[in-house]
């Protein structure tokens, strides 16, 4: 097995060039992963608790503006708009933060893991008011757990207000609960189904399991002080999910069910395959999938042990570039290749950031934090490398670099710094034949070897 730094940077990080002294082989990458989360300190992310007041204010002002008339309504509308603008500002800052961390991280592996798990537990904002919620879920329920137990991540995610809202749990009531009886409200099985299908076992359950899981989850809600269990909305009586009986209308019962789902053998197999597909190949080596599954089962779902297995399998270091870089990864890799760092991105004016990063991401088929559904972004290269997406990638590669850096890098040097040993003959032949430096840089960034990983 050869563990070269080009493969390390493309497959487990955000591309070349790696910062000086960056780890690029398993032992040192794992040491960094075990160490402190330096990027979280350098670029702090959004916390839901800091937004509670603004969210509440937005809700109050919206209500007031609808009830009041005249001057009072006008003031309320203004206050409402201010609150929304503040929330959207937080969302934009969080997007910049994510990119800054990816650019400055030692080897990018932790950031890539965060991205993987954020996608595994996809949430999408339902409104402009909710726009920062997905980023707070990543910050609070994903990031702290990427080297921890999967069960702990699962429990944090399922209780997070962003998830409870996105998959309708906050609108689900036990039909026979006190609130359900009084207000004739009932079950909503959205979260229960995706919890089984997407988040954990993936298969081997039936409609009864979904319904029972939905009943089991009914107590979960968001109270004034954050996530809580409200027995007044919980369906009374025991529930049976995947053959196990859960009795007792309290939070511990729900958490026990989540623990059991996390430790279910099917969950290990399901998520191990997803990891192999995401990091290594759309049709992954079955030995790799098995090794990851074993590492998961043997460690009780310890995500650090799973990451170690991923980094140490020979199949993980195949030189083949079988996957396409998703638009987000492509953009980070391009910024990195052009020499931008985290501070440059944090400094970017909001409009420039939207024009040069967010709008192009959407044109390439990956609007920021807006995947098509709770199953997150697709993996297959064919989905990303379509004519329309290629037009958007080529356009970005040709137009944006000269707006981002001045002077442009020397294209001949860029070929090597951005592609390392992935540089192919055709590109090396074409770059010096471009009519302008702008187009030569564009060729490098639009090349197959830059857009694959």
């Amino acid at each position, binding site marked *: 097995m050869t563990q070269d730094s080009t493969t390390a940077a493309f497959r487990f990080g955000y591309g070349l060039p790696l910062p000086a002294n960056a780890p690029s082989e398993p032992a040192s990458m794992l040491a960094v992963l075990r160490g402190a989360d330096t990027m979280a300190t350098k670029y702090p992310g959004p916390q839901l608790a800091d937004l509670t007041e603004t969210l509440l204010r937005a809700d109050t002002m919206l209500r007031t503006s609808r009830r009041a008339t005249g001057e009072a309504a006008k003031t309320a509308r203004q206050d409402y708009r201010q609150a929304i603008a503040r929330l959207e500002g937080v969302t934009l800052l969080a997007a910049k933060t994510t990119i800054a961390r990816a650019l400055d991280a030692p080897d990018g592996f932790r950031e890539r893991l965060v991205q993987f798990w954020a996608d595994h537990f996809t949430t999408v904002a339902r409104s402009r008011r909710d726009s920062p919620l997905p980023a707070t879920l990543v910050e609070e329920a994903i990031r702290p757990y990427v080297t921890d137990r999967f069960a702990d991540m699962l429990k944090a995610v399922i209780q997070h207000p962003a998830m409870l809202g996105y998959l*309708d749990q906050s609108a689900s009531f036990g039909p026979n609960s006190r609130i359900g009886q009084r207000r004739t409200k009932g079950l909503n099985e959205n979260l229960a189904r995706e919890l089984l299908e997407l988040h954990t076992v993936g298969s081997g359950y039936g*409609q009864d399991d979904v319904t029972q899981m939905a009943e089991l989850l009914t107590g979960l809600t968001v109270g004034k002080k954050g996530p809580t269990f409200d027995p007044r909305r919980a369906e009374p009586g025991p529930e049976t999910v995947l053959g196990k009986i859960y009795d007792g209308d309290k939070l511990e019962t729900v958490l026990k069910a989540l623990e059991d789902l996390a430790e279910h053998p099917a969950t290990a197999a399901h998520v191990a395959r997803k990891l192999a597909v995401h990091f290594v190949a759309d049709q992954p080596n079955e030995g790799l999938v098995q090794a990851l599954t074993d590492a998961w089962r043997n460690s009780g779902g310890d995500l650090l042990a799973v990451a170690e297995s991923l980094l140490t399998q020979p199949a993980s270091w195949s030189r083949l570039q079988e996957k396409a870089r998703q638009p987000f990864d492509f953009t980070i890799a391009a910024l990195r290749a052009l020499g931008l760092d985290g501070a440059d991105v944090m400094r970017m004016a909001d409009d420039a950031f939207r024009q040069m990063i967010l709008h192009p991401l959407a044109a390439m088929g990956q609007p920021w934090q807006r995947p098509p*559904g709770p199953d997150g972004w697709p993996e297959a290269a064919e989905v990303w490398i379509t*004519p329309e997406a290629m037009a958007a990638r080529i356009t970005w590669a040709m137009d944006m670099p000269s707006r981002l850096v001045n002077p442009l890098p020397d294209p001949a040097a860029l070929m090597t710094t951005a592609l390392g040993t992935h540089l192919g003959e055709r590109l090396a032949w074409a770059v010096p034949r471009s*009519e302008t430096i702008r187009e030569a840089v564009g060729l490098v960034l*639009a090349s*197959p070897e830059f857009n*694959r990983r």
Partner: protein
Amino acid sequence: MDRRLFLKSLTGTACSLAAHPMMTTVTLAASDGSAPLGDHRLVVVILRGAMDGLDLVRPTGDPLFARYRPTLSTTQGPDLTGYFSLNPTLEGLMPLWQAGQLGFVQATSTPYRDQRSHFDGQDILEAGTGLDLPDGTVRDGWLNRMLQAVPGLRAQTAFAIGTSSAPLLQGPAPVSNWQPDLRLDLSAQSRLLLDHIYHDDTLFREAATEALSLTENIDLSRTNGRTSPPTGGPLADTDRLTDFAADRLGQDTRIAAFSLSGWDTHRNQQGGITPPLRRLERVVLRLADRLGPQIWDKTLLLAMTEFGRTVAENGSKGTDHGTGGAMLMAGGALRGGRIMGQWPGLDEAALYQRRDLMPTSDVRAWAAHAMRGMYGFDRALLESNIFPGLTMGDDPGLLA
């Protein structure tokens, strides 16, 4: 290298690229006027997220309906058959209904059962397979398999439109994918060099070649003589998509597919289903308008979804994933003005698993009859290759 010599060597590259079917077909599109599929246009719209068929075409003639859906059946839409009424948001479609250019199928579904997963449901809808095939053996979509049965097709005969890819049209038969309003401003030299660097990577070569040729060849200012102006507002994207489809269908394109999402109405459905219904209505009306009566008369639009939703509303004024659903058909080629399919009724005992509308037909059978009626495909081909394992049943006489 001498610049002239260099260009010559690149021309060599371009020629070998031209040997690739995708490139050839695009290049030939202007000169070859023959259309292997004849004059009929088929537009397939995938409604992603599981459209609630019972809210689209409401069985308001059955008092049980209001009991199942106390908050979802409070508005009254136009009457269709005395038993069924149309969702009031779609009132604008009534002239088409009266003209026999709009129809619905009730209680239909793919062979998919029980798991009620959007993702598997959409896969099966677009693959057009039954459940008897092992996972992953069918990778192309049924519309593409139909195209594979037609010799001499060119890529622009069929278009998958929009950013969300259409697996329905994916497969070996040549198909164009495009998102309206994309431009690619490149120097001639850059185009040649891009051709060169993509040459050895099939995936990139095909995507980029098509992007490069389409940006050269597509002129979006053409409107087939129709003049409805582009609009702003929430329907602007839908309009661009529809206009692009209409423009292509007005020329050589015979098959177009795209998707409309937003149908997953788990909560507050009455508000939530309105925007996607508006988009669907807009697509139908604007397509009719932009195509003009002559082409619209040759057009059939099929709008289908992965499955229906629960008969009873859930605890949050929405509906959860169900089984039997509805299908919308429109077009001048349709013998419409009717609700097709066998209605299973709403009695609890008549429901699928006492929860969902019982499917009484296979969604693929309707598509198969449409394809047979429009393009004359063999029943055996439809039941074996295009929709493996399908039994089409009696001809419902879809075409006017």
